[in-house]
């Protein structure tokens, strides 16, 4: 099976967000593979081990994304592709990303594309289903289980807490939800091997794209931090009294009961 994974490099979930000059300050921050994309990488590796074939991890980003791609290779992916837009693009949005990916996949004959269901930074969750539409692939979002037999796939989806069981067909794009699997840590031999695995770097030119073709349809005009929440009132006294006081506060002060 020819399997692709869409990966995004994101801020570590431990990071506090700071803003400098209207932008998120990236200096000194730790970066990770978007946690939902880790599920996608793990599932891709398991499916390849079961069915044979190859796993290629693709990311759009800058030179720095190489680190996360190497991690994916160390987990067990076979190849990596970095579409480097650093020199070509100032701003992009989901339209931009998908336009680039569409061009990338044009000659690829993918059977299965896996992605995270959402990136924890911008959290639009658009790229997977948008790309499926452009490629005319069947699409299943927020999956928690997948098994493939021939050109059929049996899938379980998380739909707001309920489990939906579906049958669909390849070529297929799925977006992964927590609960799908337990992503492995790269092993030491894995890390050594990853250094020798192919990592291809492409630019817009290589995909026959001009900047105008991928111009964003949306624009961020302001980024700000929410007001810092002040610590509230910790109640005192016997538990029974605290409970009574709390209910009275919720009723009369907060007015939420």
């Amino acid at each position: 099976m020819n399997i692709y994974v869409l990966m995004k490099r994101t801020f570590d979930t431990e990071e506090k967000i700071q803003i400098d000059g209207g932008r998120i300050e990236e200096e000194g921050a730790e970066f990770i593979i978007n946690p939902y994309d880790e599920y996608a990488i793990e599932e891709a590796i398991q499916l390849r081990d079961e069915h044979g074939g190859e796993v290629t991890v693709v990311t759009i980003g800058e030179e720095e994304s190489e680190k996360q791609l190497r991690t994916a290779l160390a987990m067990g992916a076979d190849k990596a592709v970095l579409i480097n837009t650093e020199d070509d693009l100032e701003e992009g949005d989901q339209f931009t990303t998908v336009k680039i990916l569409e061009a990338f996949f044009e000659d690829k004959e993918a059977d299965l594309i896996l992605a995270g269901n959402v990136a924890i930074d911008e959290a639009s969750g658009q790229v997977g289903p948008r790309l499926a539409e452009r490629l005319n692939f069947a699409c299943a979002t927020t999956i928690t289980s997948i098994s493939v037999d021939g050109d059929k796939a049996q899938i379980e989806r998380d739909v707001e807490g309920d489990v939906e069981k579906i049958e669909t067909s390849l070529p297929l794009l799925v977006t992964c939800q927590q609960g799908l699997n337990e992503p492995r840590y790269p092993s030491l031999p894995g890390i050594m091997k990853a250094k020798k695995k192919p990592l291809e770097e492409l630019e817009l030119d290589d995909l026959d794209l001009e900047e105008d073709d991928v111009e964003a349809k949306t624009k961020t005009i302001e980024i700000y931090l929410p007001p810092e929440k002040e610590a509230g009132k910790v109640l005192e006294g016997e538990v029974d009294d605290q409970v009574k006081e709390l209910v009275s506060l919720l009723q009369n002060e907060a007015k939420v009961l």
Partner: protein
Amino acid sequence: MSRKVLVIGEVREGALRNVSFEAIAAAKTMSDGGEIVGVLCGSDDLTNMGKELIYYGADRVVTVQSDQLASYTSEGYSQALMAVIDDESPEGIVMGHTAIGKDVTPKLASKIETGLISDAVNIEETGDNIVFTRPIYSGKAFEKKIITDGLIFATIRPNNIKALDRDEGRSGEVTAKEVDIKDLRTVIKDVIRKSTEGVDLSEANVIIAGGRGVKSEDGFKPLEELAEVLGGAVGASRGACDAEYCDYSLQIGQTGKVVTPDLYIACGISGAIQHLAGMSNSKVIVAINKDPEANIFNVADYGIVGDLFDVVPKLTEEIKQIKVNA
């Protein structure tokens, strides 16, 4: 500049979801006096639900009824909705940022090659622009965003934009549109209901969440009882999910759901930064924890230092009392 705006309504278990009414209010801002057209898909007669959308502010409603639309599939719904979009040529589209909204809107946006702003919590008109506010980094920051090219397309987070008042005096046309839905590649085999009866976590006004402190699957019982008297939903921290006290579908946090209920009661949750990202924009936060140093107290409006197994049942009783007296 007035715009014609399409509101994609959503039916869940035989009733319109609240967020569909909230989407009409959003459409009001987007339309700037233009026509608001509701759209509903399903396999049953949708006329009464269509009227309901009109009571909440839609000018008219188009329904697409087909056996193929009995359950949501992204292909079935996108075919039905594309047919309506082609007919109506709207200048704006809005729907809830729900499971269906998240699944279908990117496909529609991709088909019509337009921008899409997902998960907006506020919409305002500033000059010629419609400005959407949306949380990023799971609510650790916010961004204001506009569409620069093509129609204005957005999904809104449930519980954030206030629906207009229901007015049964409003009238408008509900028309049915025939759409031939074909070549569905995906078949739904089964749906296993696991979510809390009735109340969905993302739309709940009250959430009672448990962390590692609940200690076991049974430990969620008192939380469920409290949720029941408050008409709320039960959620969990990653710690509780990882420890297998509950299903991952209940997880609130940077991975998991981001929620903004009116009242959030955190029980036995320490308050890791990833959890706070998922709930700290709730209107009122109550923390119940044995550890007075727990980080959750830093974001809580009210805190009780104590054992949740002692505090929560008492809280349930107390609230039952006031409900009886009221």
